C-alpha cells in the first residue's frame, strides 16, 4: 500500500512539474534574432600565383580586377595587402585559416594564372569561408586569350559573388549608352559600348545624328535604338559584332520611339506617334508583322516586358497624369499600378521579375524608385535635380541611370545604385553619358 501511495505521489509530482518544466525550457535553448548589421563583408584577395614565366603581371592584374568588382558592389570590403599576416605563394598549399581569421577576413579568394606557349592564359581559383574553415563550392578554371584577361577576371568575380551571396553576379556584362560631348546647346551624341565598369570603351555610331534610348537584346548581341538620321525618329537594330545596322521598319509618316526586345528576342515593342496620339505596338522581327496593343486616345509609351514575357508595363496619361500600367503581352485591359503623388515614367521590369524600376517626378525633384509588380512597397532610391532612365543589372541587383546636373553647364552622366538604395556612385565613362542599357551576362 505504501509503495502504491509513493508511486502515485511520484506520478502526480511529475505530472504537476511537467508543464512548469516545459514552460521554463523544453529541449534546446531557442532564441530568435531579428536585428543584424548592414555592413560590407571583409574579404581578402592575395595576388594570384603566377605558375609560369611571364604570368606575374597578369596574375596581379586579375586579382586586382576581382577585388575591384567585389568592392564595387558595396557588399564587400577588401582587406588591404598590408594587413596580411600570411599570403599565398602556392595554389596547392593548405590555407592557414588562423592567419586570415586574425585579420577578420571572412572570405578568402586564392588563385593562380599560367600562360601556355601559344599565349593563352588559364586562371583557376578557390573561395574559402574563413571562419567555417572550409571551401565554398569547388575550384574553377577558365581558359582564354590573353586579351580577354579582364573578362576572365570578371568571370572569377562573378563566381565568387555567387558563392557568397547565393545569387548570380553581374561583372561579366557590358553597358551600351549615349555618349555626350560638347555644351548643352550643341551636344554631340553617339552610341558607345563598354564593360560594366567603364573599361574597353568602343563607339558604335558617329556623332552626325542624334541617337536615343539604346536597348540590348536578351542575348546581348544586338542593340535597338532610335535615330533621327532619316529625318524622323526611327528604330534601328544594330549588330554589335559587325557594327552593321538596319531600320527595323520602314513605314513613312510614323515616328517610333522607346523600342525594347521581348525576352525571347523574337519581337520588339515600341510606341508609334501618329497625329498626336501615341500607342504601343508589337512587331515580329522575322516577319515584320505589327500588332497594335493599345488604342487609347492618350499617350502610351515606354513598354517593358516581364522576364517571362507574359506582361508588359508601360506609362500612360490616360488618367490625366503620367502613371504606370500593366497589361498582358498581347494587349487588352491594363491595370494601373502607380498611385503615389507625382508623375511616373520609364518603367523597367527587373530580370528577377519581382520589382519594377521607374522614374518619378514630384515637387520639382526627380527620383529613381522601385515597386512591386502590383504597385505595392514603392521605394525611392535617389533624389536629384534630374534622374531618369533606369536599367537593371543582369541579376536584378543594381540599377544604372542618367543623372543630369543643373545649369547651362550641366552635364549628363551615368550613376548606379543598389536596389536597397545604398552604394550610389558614378559610373566611369569617357565624357558624359545618358540612356544606359545593361546587357545580360556574357556567354
Amino acid at each position, binding site marked *: 500500500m505504501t*509503495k*502504491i501511495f509513493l*508511486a502515485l505521489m*511520484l506520478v502526480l*509530482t*511529475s505530472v504537476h512539474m511537467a508543464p512548469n*518544466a516545459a514552460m521554463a*525550457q523544453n*529541449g534546446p*535553448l*531557442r*532564441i*530568435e*534574432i*531579428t*536585428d*543584424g*548589421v548592414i555592413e560590407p*563583408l571583409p574579404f581578402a584577395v592575395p595576388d594570384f600565383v603566377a605558375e609560369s614565366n611571364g604570368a606575374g603581371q597578369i596574375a596581379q592584374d586579375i586579382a586586382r580586377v576581382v577585388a575591384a568588382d567585389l568592392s564595387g558592389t558595396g*557588399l564587400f570590403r577588401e582587406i588591404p595587402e598590408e594587413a596580411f599576416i600570411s599570403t599565398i605563394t602556392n595554389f*596547392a598549399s*593548405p*590555407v*592557414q585559416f588562423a592567419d586570415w581569421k586574425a585579420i577578420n577576413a*571572412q572570405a578568402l579568394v586564392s588563385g593562380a594564372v599560367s600562360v601556355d606557349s601559344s599565349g593563352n592564359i588559364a586562371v*583557376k581559383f578557390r573561395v*574559402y*569561408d574563413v*571562419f*567555417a574553415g572550409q571551401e565554398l563550392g*569547388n*575550384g*574553377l578554371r*577558365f*581558359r*582564354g586569350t590573353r*586579351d*580577354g584577361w579582364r573578362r*576572365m577576371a570578371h*568571370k572569377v568575380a562573378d*563566381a565568387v559573388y555567387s558563392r557568397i551571396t*547565393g*545569387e548570380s553576379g553581374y561583372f561579366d556584362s557590358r553597358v551600351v549608352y549615349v555618349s555626350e560631348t560638347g555644351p548643352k546647346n550643341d551636344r554631340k551624341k553617339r552610341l558607345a559600348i563598354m564593360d560594366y565598369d567603364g573599361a574597353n570603351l*568602343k*563607339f*558604335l*555610331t*558617329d556623332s552626325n*545624328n542624334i541617337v536615343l534610348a539604346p536597348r540590348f537584346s536578351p542575348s546581348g548581341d544586338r542593340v535597338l535604338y532610335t535615330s*533621327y538620321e532619316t529625318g*524622323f525618329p526611327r528604330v534601328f537594330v544594330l549588330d554589335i*559584332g559587325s*557594327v552593321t545596322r538596319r531600320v527595323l521598319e520602314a513605314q513613312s509618316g510614323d*515616328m517610333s520611339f522607346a523600342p525594347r526586345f521581348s525576352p525571347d528576342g523574337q519581337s520588339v515593342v515600341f510606341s508609334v506617334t501618329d497625329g498626336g496620339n501615341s500607342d504601343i505596338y508589337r512587331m515580329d522581327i522575322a516577319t515584320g508583322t505589327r500588332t497594335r496593343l493599345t488604342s487609347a486616345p492618350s499617350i502610351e509609351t515606354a513598354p517593358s516586358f516581364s522576364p517571362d514575357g507574359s506582361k508588359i508595363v508601360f506609362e500612360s496619361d490616360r488618367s490625366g497624369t503620367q502613371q504606370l500600367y500593366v497589361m498582358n503581352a498581347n494587349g487588352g485591359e491594363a491595370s494601373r499600378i502607380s498611385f503615389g503623388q507625382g508623375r511616373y515614367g520609364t518603367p523597367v521590369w527587373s530580370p*528577377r521579375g519581382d520589382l519594377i524600376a521607374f522614374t518619378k517626378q514630384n515637387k520639382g525633384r526627380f527620383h529613381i524608385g522601385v515597386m512591386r509588380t502590383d504597385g505595392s512597397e514603392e521605394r525611392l532610391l535617389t533624389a536629384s535635380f*534630374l534622374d531618369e532612365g533606369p536599367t537593371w543589372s543582369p541579376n536584378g*541587383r543594381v540599377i544604372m541611370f542618367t543623372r543630369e546636373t543643373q545649369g547651362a553647364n550641366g552635364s549628363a552622366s551615368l550613376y548606379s545604385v*543598389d536596389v*536597397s538604395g*545604398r552604394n550610389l556612385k558614378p559610373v566611369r565613362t569617357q565624357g558624359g553619358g545618358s540612356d544606359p542599357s545593361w546587357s545580360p551576362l556574357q556567354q
Partner: protein
Amino acid sequence: MKSRFNIGHVVSGGAHTLLIGYVLFGGVFSSEPEPPVVTGVDIISTEQFERILNADRPPLTADDVETPVAPEISEAPPEVVTEPDPVTPPAPPKAATAPEPEVTPEVEPPVEQPVELTDTAPEITPPAEPDVAPDQSVRPVSRPVTRVAPEAVETPEPDVQIADVDQAPTAPAESETESIEAQEETAREEAAPEIPTEPKSGAVTSSIRPKARPNRPTPPATPAENDTQAAETQTESRESSVNDALAQALAETPAAPSGPPLTSGEKDALRVSVQECWVVDVGSQAANVTVTVAMSLDRDGKVVGGSLRRLSATGGDENAANAAFESARRAILRCQRGGYKLPIEKYDHWRDVEITFNPEKMRRR
C-alpha cells in the same frame, strides 16, 4: 475629609489674596508709558502725486512710440529657377546620311566555359599525436565490491565457494585408506574496509561530454483497450504498472535539465552577442529567408565542431537558403571568440541551442 477641603480653600484664598495685593500695591502698573513716536507729513497736490508715480516710467507721448520700419521691397522680381523639361524634345530632322562607324567590328576574345577543378582544396594535415608520456597515469579503477568488512578481502577465485572462513582445499593422499570427506576450497566473500567513492587524487578534471539525449520518440498510438479485459487484468497489472511508473519517474528525473532556466537577460546576452556579427544583405534574395540553425556548445560556450547545421529555411529558393544559412553560420562562428558567456551552472539548459535568424525587420530599414 472636610478639614482637608477647608485647608485647601484657606490656602487658595490666602495665595490669591497675596497675589492681588502684590498687583495692587507692588507697583506693577506704576511704570511710565513709552514716549509717542512723531512722524512728519507733507501735504502734496494730486498733480505732484501723479508726477511721483510716473517718475520712473517712459513718458507716453505719441512722438516717442517707435514706428516699425517697413522692409524695403526690391523692385526686381524674384528669380524663378526654371527646371528644364526632362523630356528631350525631338530634334529637328536632319538629312538622312549614312553614318560612318568610327570603330571596326570588334572581335571578342574567346573565353572558354569554366572547368571545375578536379582536385580538392588542400587541407592542413593535423599534427601526429605527440610521442611523449602522458602527464597523468591512468587512474586505477575501483573494484566493484559491494560488501564492507573490517578488513579487505581479495577477490576469491571464481570457482571458490564463499564461506565465513578461508579453507584450503584438501587433497586425498594415496597412502591413506581412510576415506576423508572431501573438503572443498572456501574463501570469504570479497570485501573492502570502506565503500569506494570518488577518488581522492588523480581524478580527471574534465571528461568527454556525453551526447545529447535524443528526442524521445513519439509513442505509437495504442488502440483502445477493451474495457472488460482491462477490468479483469487491472488487479494483476496494478503492481507492474506501479513499478513501471516508478521506474519511469526515477529514470526521467536525472535526464531533464536541472536547476533554474536561463533568465531573459542571459538569453538576451547570447542574442546580442550573435546579432552583432549577423551581416544582412538587405537587397539580396537571402534577405527573404528565415533560417533556423542548431548547434551544440561545449562548457566553454564554444560551438562543438560539426554540430552547426541548418534545421529549416523558409522564404526563398535553395540558393537563397544556403546563402542565409552561411551568413548565420559566419555570425555564430565569428562572434563566439573565446566562447559565448553563459552561466556554467546552467549548462544543461544551453548545451543545445537553436537560433532563428529572421531578417524581416531588417528589410524594412
